[in-house]
């Protein structure tokens, strides 16, 4: 489905935790996104902030898309201040997303922090798989309710130990128990996991983050190194196979 640039109505924009918000947007007639895709989101006028912000699809329904996002800086703070009924510009859906049709068997979905966002929609979209969902948070989990029924097991790790197991999300499981590992989170976590999968011969898909300007493959600002040369994370990603990207 080709990307579009549209101005859309915000249906809801609620606080989920201290720093995380959830925004549901009416897509109107705009194309429906696939799991792992994202949008370049803009909710302000003028030149400062200048660039739109890449935000993943954390859920999608009948003509709606939901974003789960963490307030990190100016852009996400401005997004968090938008009222329901207000407007937001979306460029997308962008990127290739997860090849969900290809994934089967025992699947570990592994997330760190707000890397959770794209994986909720992705986990829910997997068919004919036994999905275990492992998620790491700083202090507390959020937005896991929607996974009930869609996945077999949800396990939580937190840095503080306040909830679930204290420590790294990667300590919750062994990659050897799975046919596929799908992950999104901090670069270091993904590198560690990617290498473990490569070593163990487990198929692994990672969703990468890069600073982006255009979101359409034109500026070459978001490239990552791959076995086949530089690739645009915005267009040829954000999802890559572990064996393809040079970690």
């Amino acid at each position, binding site marked *: 489905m*080709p*990307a*579009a*640039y549209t101005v859309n109505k915000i249906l809801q924009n609620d606080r989920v935790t201290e720093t995380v918000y959830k925004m549901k947007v009416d897509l109107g007639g705009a194309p429906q996104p696939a799991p792992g895709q994202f949008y370049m989101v*803009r909710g302000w006028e003028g*030149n*400062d*902030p*200048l*660039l*739109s912000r890449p935000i993943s699809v954390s859920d999608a329904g009948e003509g709606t898309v939901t974003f789960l996002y963490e307030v990190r800086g100016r852009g996400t703070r401005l997004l968090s201040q938008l009222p329901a009924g207000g407007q937001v*510009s979306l*460029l997308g859906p962008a990127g290739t997303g997860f090849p969900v049709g290809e994934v089967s068997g025992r699947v570990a979905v592994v997330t760190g922090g707000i890397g959770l966002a794209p994986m909720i929609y992705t986990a829910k979209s997997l068919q004919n798989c036994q999905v275990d969902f492992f998620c790491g948070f700083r202090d507390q989990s959020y937005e896991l309710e929607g996974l009930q029924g869609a996945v077999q097991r949800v396990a939580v790790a937190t840095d503080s130990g306040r909830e679930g197991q204290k420590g790294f999300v990667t300590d919750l499981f062994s990659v050897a128990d799975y046919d596929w590992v799908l992950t999104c989170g901090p670069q270091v976590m993904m590198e560690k996991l990617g290498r473990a999968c490569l070593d163990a011969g487990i198929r692994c898909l990672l969703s990468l983050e890069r*600073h*982006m*300007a*255009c*979101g*359409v*493959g*034109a*500026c*070459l*600002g*978001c*490239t990552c190194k791959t076995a086949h*040369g*530089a690739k645009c994370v915005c*267009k040829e990603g954000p999802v890559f196979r572990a064996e393809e990207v040079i970690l």
Partner: protein
Amino acid sequence: MRTDLCGVELKNPVIAASGTFGFGQEFAPFFDVGRLGGISSKGLTMGGKYGNEGQRICETPSGVINSIGLQNPGVEAFLRDDLPFMRRCGAAVIANLGGSDLQGYLDGAALLSEADIDILELNISCPNVKAGGMAFGIQCQSAHQVVSAVRKVCKKPLMVKLSPNAENIVEMARACEDAGADALSLVNTFQAMAIDVERRQPVFANLFAGLSGPAIRPIALRMVYQVCGAVKIPVVGLGGIASASDALEFLLAGATAVQVGTANFVKPDICLDIIDGIDRYLERHGFAAVSEIRGLARTDR
């Protein structure tokens, strides 16, 4: 809105700037890119380039610093894979040629000038490639040298893209005109930097990188005004244009056409807004052609 740019007829005076519009096709989902006056290709080099390591984009107040480093598939791959769409789409085709040594420029220009392009835009001003690129664009003498040499092998209209980092932009423009340029485009990006204060190191692996976007517009406009007063060949103005009013400032300063770069990232079809806005302005003020407003704000008319 038709605009003659050194013998090439553009549908209108709005050109998508090099490096911000890919090879046109990337924006085709958003609008009919054939409605543009022209498209300047991503900067090309003979053998192609991987580009720079590390973070490549950093946002600044009303601007963007980029350190792409001329990533491109090479002139030959361009001719094979990208030119066909650009040619077909209906906008004038401008091939932007970068490089880091004289021979690269000459080989690239020779090859491109055999192809079905409308204008060769010679980028002597990329701040993102070490030992070259911008080096040619700083001092008049080296600019004169490379432009003269390229002129000899180039059979297409030759537009030279100037760096705002030139020691003296007016002398630079005159040197390029003297060396045989058919047109000038300016400005490329300003050499700039950003520091990550938490990690206490420069954001870019290359240390310096290029600033573009609305932030630079007032400086770019001043340079375009100065250059338009100093040369006889047509000048294409750019730097921070994000609205019809911005574009009109450059046309009123004396530019024959404009390019739109960073603003394409803000709204993919922003060039159409600009084209329509210029059209409405002309109508509202009773001008029959873009050429009628060229330079009207100059005090030396």
